[in-house]
């Protein structure tokens, strides 16, 4: 009796269940109908603007379509042509280099900063804002600021170098420093998100566990290796995947700062895809390039997964 008083809805539900009433079935049916109606816009939107485009990209990559009325299936011709294409090769190598440098460096730096911010420090709000501001800012705006910083004549970067008596650098127009200069901006801008995610994860690591470990005589490094690191597992994977996908997408930065130059020193995949599709109007060719990018990202995510599994098994 007291149970029915406490949970009236449960009581009604059981009362209804006794005779398998039409009402409850009707209620369920109306819920299902409402559910599908509420889902319909999202399903329709994702089908038109995501699923169909992915399939469409694969199909286009086997054609020579270029906005005109006539087009033909060309099999793997686009792909074989791609591998001989100098721009694509430069873009492929540069994007890989960019990812191979930016992903680990930015992950390590943001983890270190997050560990620092996790030390019950004062002014956490200020530091968090400072590190996150570049992330919340548009990449185009970041790019114009850094374009000015790297300005060889009167930019901040050379002003800084001259403070220490170094010779001014050409930064973006020197083939040797162009890509590293872009990487530095990419790393700098991407720290914020990772720091906040790591910080949130670190705050959920059990303090008791860490305290009892330090009572047992574990030093800082041992505590990090045996408690903190394993606890970060799932978050590591998330950060790794999003960072990899993010670096493969690099475009705004390159488009505004170097447009792929000097020569093809900073040509990256998305910029090459954009150029092939919307300047040379070779949509089939550009689509083949996106398919290769898709495969590359999948491989990298797979590798990340393997790394994580190996880490867990240790």
């Amino acid at each position, binding site marked *: 009796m007291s149970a029915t008083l406490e949970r009236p809805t449960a009581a009604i539900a059981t009362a209804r269940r006794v005779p398998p009433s039409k009402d409850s079935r009707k209620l369920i049916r109306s819920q*299902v109908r409402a559910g599908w109606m509420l889902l319909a816009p999202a399903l329709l939107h994702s089908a038109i603007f*995501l*699923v169909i485009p*992915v399939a469409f990209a694969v199909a286009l990559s086997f054609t020579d379509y270029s906005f005109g009325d006539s087009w033909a299936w060309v099999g793997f011709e686009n792909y074989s042509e791609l591998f001989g294409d100098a721009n694509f090769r430069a873009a492929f190598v540069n994007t890989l280099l960019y990812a191979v440098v930016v992903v680990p460096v930015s992950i390590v730096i943001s983890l270190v900063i997050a560990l620092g911010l996790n030390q019950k420090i004062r002014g956490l709000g200020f530091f*968090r804002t400072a590190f996150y501001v570049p992330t919340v800012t*548009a990449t185009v705006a970041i790019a114009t600021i850094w374009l000015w910083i790297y300005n060889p004549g009167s930019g901040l970067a050379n002003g800084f170098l001259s403070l220490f008596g170094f010779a001014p650098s050409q930064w973006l127009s020197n083939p040797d420093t162009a890509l590293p200069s872009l990487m530095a901006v990419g790393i700098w801008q991407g720290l914020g998100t990772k720091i906040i995610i790591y910080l949130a994860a670190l705050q959920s690591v059990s303090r008791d566990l860490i305290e009892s470990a330090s009572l047992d005589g574990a030093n800082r490094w041992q505590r990090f290796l045996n408690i903190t690191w394993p606890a970060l597992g799932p978050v590591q994977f998330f950060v790794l995947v999003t960072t990899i996908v993010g670096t493969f997408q690099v475009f705004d930065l390159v488009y505004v700062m170097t447009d792929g130059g000097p020569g093809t020193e900073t040509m990256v995949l998305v910029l090459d895809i954009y150029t092939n599709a919307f300047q040379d109007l070779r949509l089939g060719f550009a689509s083949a390039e996106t398919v290769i990018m898709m495969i590359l990202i999948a491989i990298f995510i797979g590798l990340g997964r393997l790394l994580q599994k190996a880490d867990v098994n240790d």
Partner: protein
Amino acid sequence: MTSATVTGPIAGTKSSGPGIGRILLYVALSIGALLMITPFLWMVLTAFKSNLEIAKFSWLPDELRWRNFTEAMQTAPFLRYFRNSLFIAVGETAFTLAVCTMAGYALAKLPIRGSKALLSYFIILLLVPFQIILVPLFLIVKSIPLFGGNNILGQGGIGWLNSWWGLIIPLGAAPLFTFLARQFYVSVPNELAQAARVDGLGEFGIFARIMTPLVKPALITIAVFQIEAAWNAFLWPLMITTSDSMRPLQLGLAIFAQNPAEVQWPYLMAGTALATLPMIVMFIFAQKRFVEGMAHVGIKG
């Protein structure tokens, strides 16, 4: 007694450690924060300088040339770009909130067969980078039927290209936000919905008037992320806008920065300040939402 001797030395190192260790920590973090903020300071300082001053490296402007901002507006229609960006951000956010809360609620609370599979569908789509579909997306948007001079088969015209529809709809309602909304609705207890059902409220009423007000903080989180994404978007507007009157701020900035003649840095930095400040202010005010949202995606997701 033994426990006291064990804790003793640790407490000891703690009280001597904080001295140097703490100071080093604050110094390191401060240097890091300075590295983050300096470029923005440099942007603001440059925005006040004259064209003569920027010929040589200097920190502070000789005088605060506020007229740089008005002159920048005359050199390029930054104000119109700003309004366009605002319009796109607001439109896209409204669209996203409507579509994603509906779907998220249905996935979390309504007895749909296969809702688990549908959830994985959205999670997989969440991983598809926009850059991979840019070519076909352009073609699809170009052939939206009955828009931009297209016939019912989507041929003959430009569809949603160079239109507000094209700028707002395709990039709105990202699967990420459906997933986020679903995560938030799941944590709302069912009892209230049941009680409302007993009172005779319809399913849509329960969704809109009972359950959605309960996840208001989550809606703000989604809105904040969507506003940021829409405000900062570049590649898609670059692809589909041809007329200057529809260009968002980021695109306007990029065009100004690529001026084949000499770039007017003070004006460009004034425009850039216009592009960055709204998002920085939004972050400062909605910091909690940003952090919560990211924790939700990164840790629980």
